[in-house]
C-alpha cells in the first residue's frame, strides 16, 4: 500500500502575527537623519526611524533628552521658538513636512496635538470643541453640534458635560480639561495625534482614564506619546523609542524594549538606574 505523501501544511506565519511584523504595518512618518538646533545648541542628532500607522508609539527618555522637541517637530510647532534650524527629513505619507510647499494649516489639521498642561481656551465647553471645525470653515450649526457631541462622546466626556456646554471650559477639573483638549483635537478629524506628556499634570484616576482613551483611539488614529513614565509607556504603547541627549538610542517593539533591551543605556534607563 502506497503511502501518500503528506501535503505540506501551509501556515502563513506572517498573517498570524501580522501586527508584529514591522514590514507589514504601514508607516505614517519616516524620519530620516533628523537634526535640530536651537541657535547653536543641538537638540536632536541624526534621528532616523519609522512611526507606524494606527499604533501607539511612546517616546521615553530623561528630561532634556529632546523627546518633546522631537514631538513638536512632527507638526512643526517647534518653529514657534526662535532660531530653530533643522536638517534631514520627516516624510509624512509621501510628503517631506519641511518642504516649502507644505501648508502648515493643512499639516496641523492632519496632525493634532495635545499638550502637557491642559490648555482649554477661555471659551465655553461647546466653543472649545467647535473652534477647530469653525476655523476650517464649518458654519452649519447642526453640523457643529454633531461634531461637538461625537467628539465629546469619543473621549467619554459627553455625559459629564452635556447639560452645561455653555459653561466656561475653565470650570472643568484638570482631567476633564485634558479630555476636552483631546476632544477639541478630534473635532478637526486628524489622522495623527501627538501627545506631550498628556497625563503628567493629572491625578492617577484622571491619568488612567486618559490611558484607557489612548488605547481606544489607536483603532482610528496613529498616536505618538511623549512620556517620562516608563510604566505608562509599557502599558499603552506598541513601539517605544528611547532618546538620550538628543540621540535615538533604541527603537523597538515595546515588549522587547522592556524585556530585552539591546543597548546598555536603555537597559539602565528602563530598569530605573538613572533618569
Amino acid at each position: 500500500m502506497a503511502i501518500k505523501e503528506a501535503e505540506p501544511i501551509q501556515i502563513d506565519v506572517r498573517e498570524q502575527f501580522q501586527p508584529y511584523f514591522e514590514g507589514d504595518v504601514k508607516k505614517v512618518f519616516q524620519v530620516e537623519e533628523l537634526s535640530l538646533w536651537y541657535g547653536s545648541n543641538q537638540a536632536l542628532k541624526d534621528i532616523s526611524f519609522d512611526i507606524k500607522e494606527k499604533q501607539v508609539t511612546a517616546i521615553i527618555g530623561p528630561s532634556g533628552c529632546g523627546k518633546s522637541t522631537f514631538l513638536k517637530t512632527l507638526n512643526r510647532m517647534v518653529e514657534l521658538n526662535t532660531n530653530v534650524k533643522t536638517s534631514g527629513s520627516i516624510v509624512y505619507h509621501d510628503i517631506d513636512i519641511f518642504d516649502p510647499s507644505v501648508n502648515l494649516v493643512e499639516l496641523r489639521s492632519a496632525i493634532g496635538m495635545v499638550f502637557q498642561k491642559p490648555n482649554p481656551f477661555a471659551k465655553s465647553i461647546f466653543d472649545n470643541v467647535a473652534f477647530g471645525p469653525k476655523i476650517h470653515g464649518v458654519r452649519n450649526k447642526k453640523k457643529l453640534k454633531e461634531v461637538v457631541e461625537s467628539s465629546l462622546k469619543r473621549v467619554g466626556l459627553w455625559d459629564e458635560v452635556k447639560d452645561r456646554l455653555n459653561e466656561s471650559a475653565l470650570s472643568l477639573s484638570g482631567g476633564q480639561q485634558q479630555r476636552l483638549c483631546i476632544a477639541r483635537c478630534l473635532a478637526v478629524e486628524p489622522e495623527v495625534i501627538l501627545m506631550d506628556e498628556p497625563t503628567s499634570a493629572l491625578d492617577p484616576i484622571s491619568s488612567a482614564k486618559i490611558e484607557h482613551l489612548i488605547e481606544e483611539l489607536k483603532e482610528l488614529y496613529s498616536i505618538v506619546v511623549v512620556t517620562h513614565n516608563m510604566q505608562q509607556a509599557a502599558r499603552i504603547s506598541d513601539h517605544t523609542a528611547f532618546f538620550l541627549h538628543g540621540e535615538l538610542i533604541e527603537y523597538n517593539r515595546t515588549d522587547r524594549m522592556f524585556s530585552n533591551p539591546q543597548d546598555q543605556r536603555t537597559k539602565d534607563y528602563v530598569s530605573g538606574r538613572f533618569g
Partner: protein
Amino acid sequence: MTNAALIKKKRNVQLMWVTICATFAVITVGTLAFLFYWIIVGGAEVISWSFITQMPEQNMTAGGIWPALVGTIYVSLLTIAISVPLGIGAAIYLNEYAKQGRLVRLIRLSIRNLSGVPSIVYGLFGLGLFAATFGFGRSLIAAALTLAIMVLPWVITGAEEALKAVPRSFREGGLALGATKWQTIRQLVLPSAIPGMATGAILGLARAAGETAPIILTGAAYFLPIIPHDIKEQFMALPYHLYILATQHSETATVRPIAYGTALVLIILVILLNSVAIFIRNYYRRKNELL
C-alpha cells in the same frame, strides 16, 4: 546681644520702616485729598445744571461752560477713535508678527521715549504738520490728531503688555489645531487682551482730556460760544478755558469762582471717562473668566 534683644531690635527696625512708608503714603494721598477738597469747595458755589449747559456770557464773567465741555468731549473721543485702532494695530504687528530683533527693540524704545516728549513739542509738531501742511487749519481734527500722536505711546505700550500677558498655551493650542496666525490672534488672543488694552486707552483718554498746550496751538479757541458742527472748526476746551479764566482774563478775581467750577467739571469729566473705561475693562475681564 541676647536673643531677646535681637528680636526687639529687629522689631524696632521693622516698625521704623513701616512708619516711614506709611508717612509717605499719607503725604501722597493727603495732597490729592487737599487738592480735591480745595476744588470742590471753590467750585461748589457756582456749579449747577445751568452752569454746565449755558454759553459763557458777558466776556466770560457770567454764564456757563457748555461749549468748553462739549469741545473737550469731542476732542477726547476723536483722539481715542484715532489712537486706539492705530495703537492696537501697531501693538499686534510689533508683538505678534514683527521679527523680534534689534529693529523692533529700537522701535519699542522710541515709542517708550515718545511718552516723555513735552506736550508743547507735540503741539508745535501738530501745528506744523496737521494744521499747516495737511491744511486742516487750527481745528478739532488737527487737535485730535495731535493728541492722538501724543497718547499713542500709552495705547501701544498698554496693548503690547496686554498681548504679552495672554498665555502662550492659547496661541499654541490655536496653531496646533491648524488655525492661521490671524485666526489665533483674532479669536483667542485678542479677547483675552481687551481688558489690558482698555487700560492703556484709559490712560491715554485721561491725558487727552486734560492736556492744554497742544490744543492751544492746534485748534482750541479763546472764546467761541458755539458748538462745533464740523471737525474742521475750532472749539473751546475745559483746560484752556480754565487757563484763560485763571491767568489771562482782565478780571481774574471776578471770574475766580467760574474757574473753580471749570476745574471741578474737568476733574469730574475725567473721572467719568475713566469709570466708563474701567467698566468696559471689568466687563470683558469677567466675561473672559466666567463667560
